[in-house]
């Protein structure tokens, strides 16, 4: 009925933008042209995405595939360059291109005057292209190209300030840690391919995988293995325990990168992937339990680290890890809709928070620069009282903080509440998971308001000279902030739960994607809880109260009684030190994995390569040399010797033939 022929344009525009800026940017030089081109490319994608998104809403047929070209055709396996548009990917392209456009616009202001401005926009467009390939791909291989592409762009953008050693190290760390996850993804893909193949279905197409997954047998070992491997891939890309350590370090990149890649889009790829393969995951209850536990553990664990960080971007980074844990918890208890819903709202408020922090850093940098101060512009201990100086940044940051803290009727409230309810009431949920999630919600509220208190409220801790030069950022920075804050406030109304008199649009929207698997494998709210509205409201009020407690505690500790945190640190010095040093996880990984690997490498170099490999090569040479030294004395230079040798030789030969 409706046509979706121009789906390929969505990833095509950013690709063109990346190529033009990458190849010609150095010659163009004009920042307005480069930035405008990059923004236009992704905004065009956004326009196409909008068209198709709203078209899909009206359409009765919800799954559309478009094949551009055949990639490979081996035996019964046919892999295409194909795109898949269904409610899930439609929402994802809306988030990627929408938030992406705003962040491109923001970057024009934020990256003004930076060396390699064109490089930045080229990478950013390339990232959008890869991310769109990831979400739009109709088979696992196209998705994998996007999966690796976003990893590459993440590496390039974290290491954007490559002259700084810390940035280069962080980029390498992100790449290597992701590699561990990618290994899991690939192995999962191989097993899936062969096990489906052994049932006669040779395919990598998501729709066909979904239709034939039941052949593997629900709960069978092979499904558990496949999904665990995929989940390993997801932990790498989406920064979950045990592979989350790269994300906080990734804050070395420019702030728009942190907002786009390390908060709103790339890190949610793991959640998206689980959503895309929801049939497989639904068939493996043990894997889903692992996912739920890891998600809940990450949510709490990362939140604790967020308590003690002083770098504004690090607080947000740990908050991202924690919120991603929330999404995985949702996926693990079968609340796929809630997980993707939280992905969307998180993209709004976390992008806004990161961009707000970027605006603050921008202003602080400017102020400190004028005061000739060498204080760290990202350290919250140097900030304080910025609300008066930067009104737009402050209000948008505050609303986003309220949204992430689960303040009633803001977007984070609806998505979090949905996750909390499912983690308690789902057939695959449990009250323990609910407790963890509620605890994490309280902690989130606490450290986010600690962040707001230290940054925007209280006394200004900068010198008077620096203070005069701190001012609001230009419109290219504030406009995206306002738009994102608006979405962070109102974005949740697409998913107002029935208990609050809402229609829960997003639930119906995702019905075609997740409904089948949930129905077939019995994932739903427990039957006993269906009618207990009292309990649902009670839990809701409980989680809101926990959030308010966190907010109140943070305001009390950091605003009313600023002496308290110091006293607390003095009283629990050891605990504070441990949390401040991120539970020494990096050090533990160093001791367990990195140093043994380095030692193995050193052994292979000095022990094996130098001694064994070089020994064999040089030994062959030495043996040949020794032999020929013995032989060469026969070459005396005396003609008589040669003649004599010839004669003797001939006599021997003749004698042999005569007397044999």
């Amino acid at each position, binding site marked *: 009925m409706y046509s979706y022929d121009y789906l390929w344009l969505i990833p095509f525009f950013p690709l063109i933008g990346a190529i033009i800026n990458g190849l010609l940017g150095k010659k163009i030089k004009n920042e307005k042209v480069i930035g405008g081109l990059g923004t236009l490319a992704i905004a065009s994608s956004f326009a196409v995405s909008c068209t198709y998104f709203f078209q899909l809403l009206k359409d009765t047929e919800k799954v559309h595939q478009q094949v551009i070209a055949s990639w490979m055709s081996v035996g019964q396996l046919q892999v295409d360059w194909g795109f898949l548009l269904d409610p899930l990917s439609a929402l994802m392209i809306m988030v990627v291109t929408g938030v992406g456009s705003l962040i491109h616009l923001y970057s024009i202001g934020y990256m003004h005057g930076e060396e390699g401005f064109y490089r930045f926009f080229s990478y950013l467009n390339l990232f959008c292209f890869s991310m769109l390939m990831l979400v739009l791909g109709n088979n696992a291989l196209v998705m994998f190209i996007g999966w690796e592409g976003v990893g590459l762009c993440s590496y390039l953008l974290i290491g954007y300030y490559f002259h700084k050693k810390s940035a280069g190290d962080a980029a390498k760390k992100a790449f290597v840690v992701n590699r561990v996850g990618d290994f899991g993804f690939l192995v999962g893909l191989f097993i899936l391919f062969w096990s489906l193949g052994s049932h006669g279905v040779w395919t990598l197409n998501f729709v066909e995988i979904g239709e034939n997954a039941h052949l593997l047998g629900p709960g069978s070992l092979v499904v558990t293995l496949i999904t665990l491997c995929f989940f390993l891939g997801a932990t790498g890309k989406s920064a979950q325990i045990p592979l989350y350590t790269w994300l906080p370090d990734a804050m070395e990149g420019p702030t728009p990168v942190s907002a786009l890649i390390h908060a709103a889009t790339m890190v949610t790829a793991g959640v998206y992937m689980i959503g895309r393969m929801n049939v497989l995951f639904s068939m493996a209850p043990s894997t889903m339990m692992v996912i739920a536990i890891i998600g809940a553990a990450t949510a709490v664990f990362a939140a604790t680290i967020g308590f003690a960080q002083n770098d504004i971007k690090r607080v947000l980074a740990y908050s991202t890890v924690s919120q991603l844990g929330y999404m995985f918890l949702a996926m693990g208890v079968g609340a796929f809709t809630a997980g993707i819903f939280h992905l969307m709202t998180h993209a709004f408020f976390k992008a806004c928070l990161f961009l707000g922090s970027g605006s603050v850093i921008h202003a602080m940098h400017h102020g400190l620069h004028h005061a000739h101060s060498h204080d760290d512009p990202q350290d919250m201990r140097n900030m304080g009282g910025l609300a008066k100086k930067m009104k737009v940044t402050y209000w948008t940051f505050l609303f986003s903080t309220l949204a992430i803290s689960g303040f009633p009727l803001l977007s984070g409230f609806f998505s979090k509440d949905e996750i909390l309810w499912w983690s308690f009431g789902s057939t695959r949920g449990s009250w323990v998971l609910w407790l963890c999630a509620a605890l994490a919600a309280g902690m989130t509220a606490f450290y986010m308001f600690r962040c707001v208190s230290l940054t925007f409220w209280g006394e200004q801790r900068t010198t008077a000279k620096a203070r005069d030069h701190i001012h609001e950022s230009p419109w290219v920075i504030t406009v995206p902030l306002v738009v994102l804050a608006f979405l962070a406030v109102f974005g949740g109304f697409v998913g107002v739960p029935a208990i609050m008199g809402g229609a829960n649009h997003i639930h119906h929207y995702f019905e075609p994607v997740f409904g089948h698997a949930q129905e077939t494998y019995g994932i739903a709210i427990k039957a006993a809880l269906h009618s207990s509205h009292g309990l649902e409201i009670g839990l809701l009020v409980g989680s809101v109260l926990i959030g308010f407690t966190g907010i109140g505690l943070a305001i009390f500790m950091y605003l009313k009684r600023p002496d308290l945190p110091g006293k607390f640190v003095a009283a629990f010095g050891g605990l504070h030190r441990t949390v401040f040093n991120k539970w020494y996880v990096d050090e533990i990984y160093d001791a367990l994995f990195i140093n043994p690997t380095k030692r193995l490498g050193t052994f292979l170099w000095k022990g094996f390569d130098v001694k064994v490999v070089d020994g064999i090569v040089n030994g062959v040479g030495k043996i040949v040399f020794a032999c020929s030294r013995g032989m060469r004395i026969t070459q*005396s*230079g005396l*003609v008589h010797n040669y*003649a004599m040798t010839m*004669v003797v030789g001939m006599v021997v030969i003749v004698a042999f033939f005569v007397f044999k």
Partner: protein
Amino acid sequence: MTPTVYHYLVLSAILFSMGTIGVLTRRNAIVIFMCIELMLNAVNLSFISLSSHLGNLDGQIFVFFVMAVAAAEAAVGLALMITFFRNRESIEVDDINLLKW
């Protein structure tokens, strides 16, 4: 007593051995050269005697080839020796030792 083919072959062997010993013992390149010619001619003698004995002309034709080769060899060899003598002022083979180890 008329000489038979055996007599010729024995003479040829004696001449060949004399040539060989000459090549191995003498130092003067020209003498060595002459000894080589002696060996060639010893072979020629055995060719001709066997040709006559067997009534087959092949051997005699072969001798012409040997003589042609010997003539060419003499020309090349003497040219080499003259060049060598110009460089070294010597014709002793023990002095030709540039290519030893």
